[in-house]
């Protein structure tokens, strides 16, 4: 059942090809309708909705505690940060005073999530350009983080560790020890990432100078996260609209100016170093105290509109809640980073080859449930 009408007005050399929904490079169920001339991409048209679950509609019937676990299923690679976004919105709306301990733990876990997401991305990135071994090296390091999560939160991916007001339970006694072990381990492995892939001549030739996104276009397309920062667009929400404990730590916003695929790659690898340094600054300084602030069993947000943005591993996640004072949100909207990042794919992939499209798409780091909410 093809629902997309065939676009005519082809030139005689052009043909159309379906990349996805089952295709190794689309990482999920994204369908790209490519118009190709030989190997040259003429047009990329994404077709979405294969796993749309209408989370926004489901939110309208759920209580605020219940909404949090739905956000796990959006961008599953930064599920903790998604949870945090909803919780922060609710907490800001209720004007709750959040204990320092919660803020610090949230920040540490968010940064661990970011590293986990980036290591997975790094592995898959290598696989997309044909170096299959990177996948396993990336997963080796991610596995350690997942173990930390599992010990503390009980789940490896869809953690649901945040509740409006704080955390579901305190960190596990082993948390600090394991995190330090991970930092020590990862500091020896991260240079290998560069040796194996970043400096590799084939990889660099593949990545440099393709998929170029200028700063103006990046802003206009709403690119965020590493995609925006690789174009020289300072868009780190952690810096510009600081939340949790990010105002207490020192870290650099990684900025590149080339805007090509390789600089997007570099931004992510360098961001892992920054995340490590954030965790290092915080891990010894987790303040004592409560791990949650008391809330009512039934949370009712005061009437009004609330917006909160956070920086997920993919970019800026916005949560927009319209409340009418009841226990459910009247309208809930997630502004997902992947959605905006996907919208610029056509812009930067046209003129490249099929191989370029795959590399470009890999550096956009699309997670389809994030787009298909």
């Amino acid at each position, binding site marked *: 059942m093809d629902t997309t009408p065939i676009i005519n007005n082809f030139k005689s050399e052009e043909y159309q090809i379906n990349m996805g929904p089952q295709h190794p490079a689309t990482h999920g169920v994204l369908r790209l309708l490519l118009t190709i001339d030989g190997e040259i991409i003429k047009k990329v048209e994404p077709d979405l909705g294969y796993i749309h679950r209408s989370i926004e509609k489901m939110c309208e019937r759920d209580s605020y505690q*219940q909404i949090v*676990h739905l956000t796990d299923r959006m961008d599953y690679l930064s599920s903790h940060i998604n949870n945090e976004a909803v919780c922060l919105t609710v907490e800001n709306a209720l004007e709750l005073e959040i204990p320092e301990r919660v803020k610090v733990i949230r920040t540490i876990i968010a940064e661990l999530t970011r590293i986990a997401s980036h290591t997975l991305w790094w592995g898959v990135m290598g696989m997309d350009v044909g170096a299959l*071994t990177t996948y396993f090296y990336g997963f080796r390091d991610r596995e350690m983080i997942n173990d930390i999560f*599992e010990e503390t939160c009980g*789940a490896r991916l869809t953690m*649901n560790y945040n509740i409006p007001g704080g955390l579901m339970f305190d960190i*596990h006694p082993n948390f600090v020890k394991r995190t330090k072990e991970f930092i020590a381990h990862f500091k020896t492995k991260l240079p290998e990432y560069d*040796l194996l892939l970043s400096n590799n001549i084939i990889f660099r030739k593949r990545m440099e100078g393709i998929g170029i996104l200028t700063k103006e276009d990046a802003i206009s397309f709403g690119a965020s996260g590493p995609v925006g920062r690789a174009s020289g667009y300072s868009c780190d929400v952690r810096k510009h609209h600081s939340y949790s404990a990010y105002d207490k730590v020192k870290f650099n916003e990684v900025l590149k100016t080339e805007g090509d695929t390789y600089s997007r790659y570099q931004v992510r690898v360098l961001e892992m170093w920054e995340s490590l340094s954030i965790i290092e600054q915080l891990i010894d300084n987790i303040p004592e105290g409560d791990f949650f602030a008391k809330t009512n069993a039934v949370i009712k947000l005061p009437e009004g509109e609330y917006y909160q943005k956070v920086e997920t591993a993919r970019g800026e996640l916005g949560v927009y809640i319209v409340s009418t004072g009841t226990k459910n949100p009247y309208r809930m909207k997630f502004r997902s980073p992947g959605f905006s990042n996907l919208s610029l794919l056509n812009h930067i992939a046209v003129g490249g080859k099929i191989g370029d499209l795959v590399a470009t798409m890999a550096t956009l780091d699309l997670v389809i449930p994030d787009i298909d909410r």
Partner: protein
Amino acid sequence: MSYFSDIYNGVKTLLTGMSVTGKYFLHSRKGAITQQYPDNRDTLKMFDRFRGEVVMPHDENNEHRCTGCQKCELACPNGSIEIIWDRQVDPETGKKKKMIDQHIYHLGMCTMCGLCIEACPTDAIKWAQNFENSVYDRAYLTRVLNKPGSKLMPGVED
């Protein structure tokens, strides 16, 4: 001359890459990161907070702690918990009291969010670390958590 220096540098980066994988190849004897799952069943222990499935612990007298307050049912986002209850006369006090008949848990609908366990005021339900949840028939995924003939542990109140 940049032609030749390009070749030289290119080959050098390739060899560095090969040295990384080569190092792992040589250490492959001890370095496998994978687990041989069904074989290591005996030693494989999940973390104590691992969310496998919701269970209701019973003590040796076949008594549980569920008062039938239905807070878990309300907290569940997916409707995976259903509590069938009625009012029965408590033999000790002689008053009518809410008693659970069946605490039904649909594992197939559960998203392991943990809200029910947070919501439970009497710690009647908790996480089990069992992860081998696959069954041949979907009907097996619907479980009655309280054992037949079980009753409320004395002294547990809302």
